C-alpha cells in the first residue's frame, strides 16, 4: 500500500509536473504557430455564449481558490484572524458556487460539441479528451465539496501540506495515507490533466494578454538586424 501510495503521490506528481513544464516549453519553442485557443465561435456563436462564460469564471476562481487555500499555510490565515473553521466554511461555500458554474458550463460546452453539426465536424479527439478530463476533474472536485458538507475531512493539515511538500521538493507521501479515496481520485485526475494540458488547447491559459494593458496601441516593427 505504501509503495503504491508513494508511486501515486510522489512519483506520479513529479512525472506529471515535469511533462507539464517541459511540454509547455517544448511546444512553445518548437512550434509557436500551434499555440492557440482554437476558437470555434465563428462556427457557432449562440451555443457558446453561456457555457463558455460561466465555465471560465468558475474555473478561474476555482483555480485562485485552490491557490489561496492550499498553497498558503493555515498559520498565515490564523495570523489574519481567519481560523481553520472559517477557512473551511468559506472554501466550501465559494467552492460550491464556482464549482457548480464550471461544471454546468462544461456540460453545456460538451453538449454543444456533440449537438452542433459544424462544431462536431471540426472537433478533434484532443478537444474531446480536454473537455472530458476537465469535466472529470471538476465533477470530482464538486462532489468533494458536496460530500464535505456531510462528512468533513481535514484537508488543511493533510492534502495542503502534502501539496506544498511536492512544490518545495520535500515530498511526504505519508500525509496522503489517510486521505479518503474521493480526494485521491480528484488529485490524480488533476495531475493527469496537468500532464496533458501542454498538448491541448489549454496552452491558451498562458497567453492572458497582460501586456495589452501596458503596450502602446499601434505596434511598429522594424526589420530585425540579424548578425
Amino acid at each position: 500500500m505504501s509503495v503504491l501510495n508513494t508511486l501515486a503521490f510522489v512519483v506520479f506528481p513529479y512525472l506529471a509536473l515535469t511533462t507539464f513544464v517541459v511540454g509547455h516549453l517544448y511546444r512553445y519553442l518548437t512550434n509557436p504557430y500551434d499555440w492557440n485557443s482554437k476558437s470555434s465561435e465563428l462556427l457557432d456563436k449562440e451555443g457558446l455564449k453561456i457555457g463558455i462564460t460561466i465555465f471560465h469564471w468558475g474555473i478561474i476562481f476555482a483555480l485562485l481558490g485552490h491557490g489561496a487555500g492550499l498553497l498558503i499555510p493555515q498559520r498565515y490565515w490564523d495570523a489574519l484572524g481567519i481560523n481553520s473553521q472559517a477557512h473551511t466554511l468559506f472554501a466550501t461555500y465559494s467552492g460550491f458556487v464556482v464549482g457548480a458554474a464550471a461544471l454546468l458550463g462544461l456540460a453545456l460546452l460538451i453538449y454543444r460539441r456533440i449537438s452542433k453539426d459544424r462544431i462536431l465536424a471540426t472537433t478533434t479527439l484532443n478537444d474531446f479528451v480536454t473537455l472530458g478530463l476537465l469535466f472529470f476533474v471538476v465533477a470530482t472536485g464538486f462532489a468533494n465539496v458536496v460530500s464535505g458538507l456531510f462528512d468533513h475531512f481535514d484537508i488543511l493539515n493533510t492534502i495542503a501540506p502534502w501539496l506544498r511538500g511536492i512544490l518545495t521538493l520535500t515530498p511526504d507521501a505519508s500525509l496522503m495515507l489517510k486521505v479518503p479515496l474521493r480526494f485521491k481520485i480528484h488529485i490524480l485526475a488533476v495531475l493527469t490533466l496537468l500532464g496533458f494540458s501542454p498538448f491541448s488547447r489549454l496552452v491558451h491559459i498562458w497567453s492572458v494578454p497582460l501586456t495589452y494593458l501596458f503596450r502602446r496601441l499601434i505596434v511598429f516593427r522594424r526589420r530585425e538586424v540579424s548578425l
Partner: protein
Amino acid sequence: MKIFHNPDLPAIDEYYEPWTYNYEKLISTPQKKHQPSTRPKSLITGQPIRLKWGPNWEDDLAGVSTTGSGDVNFKNLDYQIYLQFKKVFMFYLPRLCEHCLNPACVASCPSGALYKRDEDGIVLVDQERCRGWRYCVSGCPYKKVYFNWQTGRSEKCLFCYPRVEAGLTSLCAETCVGKIRYVGVILYDADKIATAASMKEEHKLYPAQTELFLDPNDPEVVAEAISQGVPQSYVEAAQASPVYKLAAEWGLAFPLHPEFRTLPMVWYVPPLSPLVQFLEESEEAVHNPEAMRIPLTYLANLLTAGDEEPIRLALRRLMALRSYMRSKRLEGEADSGVLEKAGMTEEMAEGMYRLLAIAKYGDRFVIPTVKKEKEFDLYQEQGAAGFGPHGA
C-alpha cells in the same frame, strides 16, 4: 475587463457557409438516361446544403434589394429614387486592406500579434503570435481581417510584401487589366498622425490626412528624410511617386471612408459617369459633375465623409482633361481655357494624361528595393534562408 467581452464578433453565416460540389458523382455514376448532377455540400460539415448567400452574391446590383437600403453611402439621398430603372447606377469598388496609418486592427489585438512595418507601412498578422482572439476582425472598419476557422488564426492582405521588398508591386496591381492601380512611396510626418486622426469634424479628416504627406521635392523635406536614415533610393522613389501626384498634387484620389479615422492608405479616383440625358444638350452640362448619373453626394459619402467640394473638383478636372485632349487631338488646337476653369495648367494636364491614359508600367509602379545590404551580413545570409516553419 472589456477585452474579455466582445459581442460584435461575426459568425460564419454573416459571410456564407463555404461549399463545394460532389464532383466525383459526375464520373462515378453508372450510365443512366439523365445527366448526373452535382449538388452543393458544405466544406465544414460535408453535408448537402442549400445555397442562400455566397461570395459576390450581390455583384452587379443582384443583391441590391437586400443590401442596398442599408448602404450608408445613400446618406442625404433618397434611396428609393435610385431604385427606378432609369436612375439606377453602379460601379465597382475593389475593397482592399488599406494598410492604415492608424490601423484599428493593430490597436485592437490583445496579443500584440498585428503590427505595422516601420520601413514600408505594411500591416501584418504575426501568425506565430496570433492566439485567435479575432478582435482585429471586429476592429477593422473595412472588414479586411478574416478568421481562418481551420488554423484558428486571423489572416489579412499582406500587400505581397516579399515582392514589394524586391521592388515589385503587389500582384493585384500588377495584374489589373484596366491598369488602374498605382503604387508608390509617400513620405509622411508620423508625429502628426494623432492630430490628423482626431480632427473633430469628419470632413476635415481628408484634408488633414493630405497634410501629413510631405512634398518629396521640397529640399528641406529631403534633407530631413536623409538625416533620419531614409535611403536615397526611397527619396527618389517618393519624388517619382504616382500616388503622391494623384492624392496630393492633383487632388484626384481620395481615401475610402475617412470618417473611420484609421487614415487609410489605399486611395480611390472617383469615376466619371454618363451625363444624364436631359442636361446633355446644354453647353454647361458638359462640365457639370452634378449632371452625372452617379450622384455626387454618393461619391462624397464614400470618399470624403460627405464633403462634395473636393469630389466636384476632381471630376471637373477629369472632364477638363478629356475636353483638352480632344481639342488637341481632334480639333488640332489645344483649348487651355477648359483647363484654367478647373484650376489646371497644361503641364499638369500632360502629366495626368501620361499617368492615367498612357499608364506605363514604370510610371504606375515606382517601388524601391529594400536596402538589405546595410542591415544584414549578406555573406552569412547566403544559404541560411529558406521556407518552413522555422526557416527564413
